[in-house]
């Protein structure tokens, strides 16, 4: 049986609390919570940046912020939401859920996991420190050369960006290796690949995308950095370089990045929908293969971001058709999600509302995506607000809806308490209405000629009315997250009866152990016989399982806590940070020294406690 309790062991839980225990933790669940809290903070920062943007655009020729500040704001809004918001929010779910859903005790490399988090945190801080020096990145999240070369951007703004993203890339790559190995090696006995929960499948594919695409952006960033620092000419036309090389490298990363942002969300809602429809996921194999197909073809469509660059008709036709083909597996996913609901018994709990909202909004984002897959149409749409509308329907209507639903769904597992349903529903409806009020009018504005990335617009353009509506929507959208924040605080402070291991009558293994789980997750590893392992157990048992008992914390030998990953992370950040505003030799030397010490100490410390 999966959750055999060691009844005779006294359930003494020597709580590891306090700041030091968090700094030295190598527990995937704690690291997941750290990722979640940090990413949510950055997400709110990115949201505030968006609100300033919206206030500036509320009317024509407004001067709330200066043109350069505006450019910094939209650059940092995009950079923050992608690299410090949605990606690490997904990483929260990877960390917390992949080992639990696989029936494992931790990730394959717990200290490497801590290292990933610390590098992410320091990279996020590094890139945001630029606000305090007044030199926040201002070249767009896409950083197009040759605007970002030294000649046209002499300040340290772009350095913060190239260095910050390289640091964040180290975090993403280390984490991707970790979750890849974890998924391949640490599945519970009996769990075949085609038994894995859909969230693990989509996350697994995401790790492959990360492993293949992040080296590309890293190379591009290094080339740009040495162009800027040492005067090479990879992207400098006067030195024989070519700015279009940057675009190919950037989008060769940037398009897979879109799937890195959205595939985990596909996984999240594929977990929520069956539980609240009381029916298994429809077309499991098709879901797996469509996800893999999207990821694979996703590497062959990058130049649809470049239809306006004049690549010639053959390249345009190829990238157009490849892009349209992606609509087919995406459609399969949407139909399968509706098929999961169809014939079920739909319970409109908050996570389910967000999952349904995800489908409804993602359809919209997908269809507008098909509209600019056609180059002749895209020549009008690209770089207008139509595109801004499109990708917010995908990344906010998609990813943020799914992540919010996932937060409500797994909150009781993570913290042993239910978030308030009433506030949750209020959050959902406010967000749904405000989201559409903010982003739907952008379609109309874009088609009627409003370009992206402009700090203002003329009165003649007549863009004012719809921009006003969008700003009102954005403020309401911000308010919906205050409701969420209030819900979190209220739940935190209000005592609740224990939620039990399985409050949703869910399908996957993480719901078979106490909420929150103990350090080692599973006292004995579960035996798996098929998909939806917990539903299967409950079916065999003929009803709900008895509540699992907590067992002695030292019943299972777990890795030692360690502060060495933090040291190594500081080393990485300092080494690369020495490239801000030129190359500072002694900063590099100090950084390398810290890094070497961190790795050395890490390599020679005992991973596990002495057995006593």
């Amino acid at each position, binding site marked *: 049986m999966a959750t055999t309790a060691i009844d005779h062991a006294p359930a003494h839980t020597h709580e590891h609390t306090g700041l030091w225990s968090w700094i030295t933790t190598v527990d995937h669940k704690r690291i997941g919570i750290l990722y979640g809290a940090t990413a949510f903070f950055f997400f709110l920062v990115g949201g505030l940046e968006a609100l300033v943007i919206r206030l500036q655009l509320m009317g024509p020729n407004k001067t709330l912020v200066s043109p350069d500040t505006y450019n910094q704001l939209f650059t940092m809004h995009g950079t923050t939401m992608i690299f410090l918001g949605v990606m690490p929010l997904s990483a929260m779910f990877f960390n917390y859920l992949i080992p639990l859903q696989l029936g494992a005790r931790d990730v394959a490399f717990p200290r490497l996991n801590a290292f990933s988090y610390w590098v992410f945190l320091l990279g996020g801080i590094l890139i945001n420190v630029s606000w305090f020096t007044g030199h926040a990145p201002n070249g767009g999240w896409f950083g197009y050369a040759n605007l970002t070369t030294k000649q046209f951007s002499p300040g340290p703004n772009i350095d913060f960006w190239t260095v910050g993203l390289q640091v964040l890339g180290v975090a993403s790559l280390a984490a991707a290796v970790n979750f890849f190995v974890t998924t391949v090696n640490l599945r519970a006995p009996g769990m075949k690949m085609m038994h894995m929960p859909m969230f693990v499948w989509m996350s697994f594919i995401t790790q492959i995308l990360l492993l293949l695409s992040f080296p590309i952006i890293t190379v591009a960033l290094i080339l740009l950095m040495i162009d800027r620092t040492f005067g090479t000419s990879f992207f400098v036309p006067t030195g024989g370089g070519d700015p279009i090389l940057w675009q190919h490298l950037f989008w060769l990363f940037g398009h897979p990045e879109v799937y890195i942002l959205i595939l985990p969300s596909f996984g999240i809602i594929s977990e929520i929908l069956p539980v609240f429809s009381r029916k298994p996921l429809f077309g499991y194999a098709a879901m797996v293969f469509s996800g893999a197909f999207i990821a694979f073809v996703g590497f062959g469509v990058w130049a649809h971001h470049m239809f306006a660059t004049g690549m010639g008709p053959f390249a345009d036709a190829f990238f157009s058709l490849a892009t349209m083909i992606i609509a087919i597996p995406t459609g399969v996913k949407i139909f399968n999600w509706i098929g999961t609901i169809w014939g079920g018994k739909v319970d409109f709990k908050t996570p389910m509302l967000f999952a349904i909202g995800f489908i409804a909004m993602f359809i919209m984002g997908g269809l507008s995506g098909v509209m600019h897959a056609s180059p002749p149409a895209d020549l*009008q749409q690209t770089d207008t607000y139509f595109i801004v509308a499109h990708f917010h329907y995908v990344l906010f209507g998609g990813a943020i809806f799914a992540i919010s639903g996932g937060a409500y769904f797994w909150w009781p597992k993570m913290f042993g308490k239910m978030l308030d349903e009433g506030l949750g529903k209020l959050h959902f409806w406010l967000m749904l209405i405000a989201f559409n009020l903010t982003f739907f009018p952008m379609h109309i504005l874009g088609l009627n000629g409003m370009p992206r990335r402009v700090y*203002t617009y003329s009165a003649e353009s007549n863009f004012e009315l719809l921009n006003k509506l969008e700003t009102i929507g954005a403020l309401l959208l911000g308010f919906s997250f205050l409701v969420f924040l209030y819900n979190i605080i209220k739940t935190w402070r209000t005592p609740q009866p224990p939620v039990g291991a399985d409050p949703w009558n869910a399908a996957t293994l993480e719901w078979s152990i106490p909420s929150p789980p103990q350090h080692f997750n599973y006292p004995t590893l579960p035996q798996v016989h098929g998909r939806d392992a917990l539903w299967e157990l409950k079916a065999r048992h003929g009803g709900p399982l008895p509540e699992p008992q907590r067992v002695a914390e030292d019943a299972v030998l777990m890795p030692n806590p360690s502060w060495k990953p933090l040291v190594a992370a500081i080393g990485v950040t300092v080494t690369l940070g020495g490239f801000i505003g030129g190359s500072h030799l002694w900063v590099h030397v100090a950084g390398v020294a810290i890094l070497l010490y961190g790795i050395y100490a890490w390599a020679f410390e005992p991973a596990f406690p002495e057995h006593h």
Partner: protein
Amino acid sequence: MPDPAHRRPPSRVPALMLAAVVALLAACAPDQYPQTTLLPRADFAKASDDIFRTTLLWATIVFVLVETALLVAIWKFRNRPGAAEPVQTHGNTTLEIVWTIIPAFILAMIAVPTVRTIFQTAQKPGPEALQVEVIGHQWWWEFRYPQLGITTAGELIVPMGRTVSLEMTTKDVLHSFWLPQFAGKRDVFPNRYNNLWFKAEVTGNFPAQCVEFCGIQHGRMAYRIISKAPEEFDAWAANFNQPPRDFSADSTAPALVKTGQQLFTMKGCIGCHSLYPALPLTGPNLHHIGSRTWIAAGTLENTDENLAKWIQDPQGWKEGVLMPNLGLTDQETQALVAYLRAQQ
């Protein structure tokens, strides 16, 4: 029968909601937006628009069908008291094949005209077309007409009914030249020429702006596209080819204009701004600036007040622009305005 005195006043909410819906629908009407892409006025833009409308039609059909299916599913299968446990289906191969093939078919309906239009719009116009060299600068556009020996800035002037062939590049960073009413857009790259072409079907003065982020003043890098009747265009070109008006020896010229001419040299304007139709310098060419419709890269109407405001405080309107504030007095500014106004 209810007492009329106690009847509740009619709610204003439905009326307000109706008004909001009407206002929103009105806000969608493209003819209110001078920069709209939805009212194509040339062959190239119409080809783009045809594809857009085909795709929009299919997208709308799919949107309505799939969203309806979703809403029906959640309504029909909502949890009701006493509902039985659902049948635990895992999939349906036939159904899954069908909903793979139908989208593929719909995509083919879009893909075929797409590929046809890609190759159609990629053809280059013949030598009879009017050639215009389009050059992006931070943050204004230069237009050269090699067949006519003309260099101008901020206003692309074209003849209606004749194909215009644009050869486009940049002097500094990437920009993107957009003709929302006439053709799509193309990015411009240093050391490389990109093309677009179109044949305007109407006359008029249309706004447009740069659509590739190009630095601090990307937001105010606009221009006008002016389509003239063929004979008006020829007259404009012939007139434009005159040398700049020189008032130094003209005894009938107002003193203010003469002062302006001296200031144009003394204050250094002449270092960047050419007044000769075929002479490009680093700043926008100002030949016939007095008759242009918009100034400051298409962001200010060419009135005396705007011209004065721009000359006196370019950094106030376009912070970071390469044109410095020269500390001109009001009198100096008026003189320069008078001189530039006389250049037409």
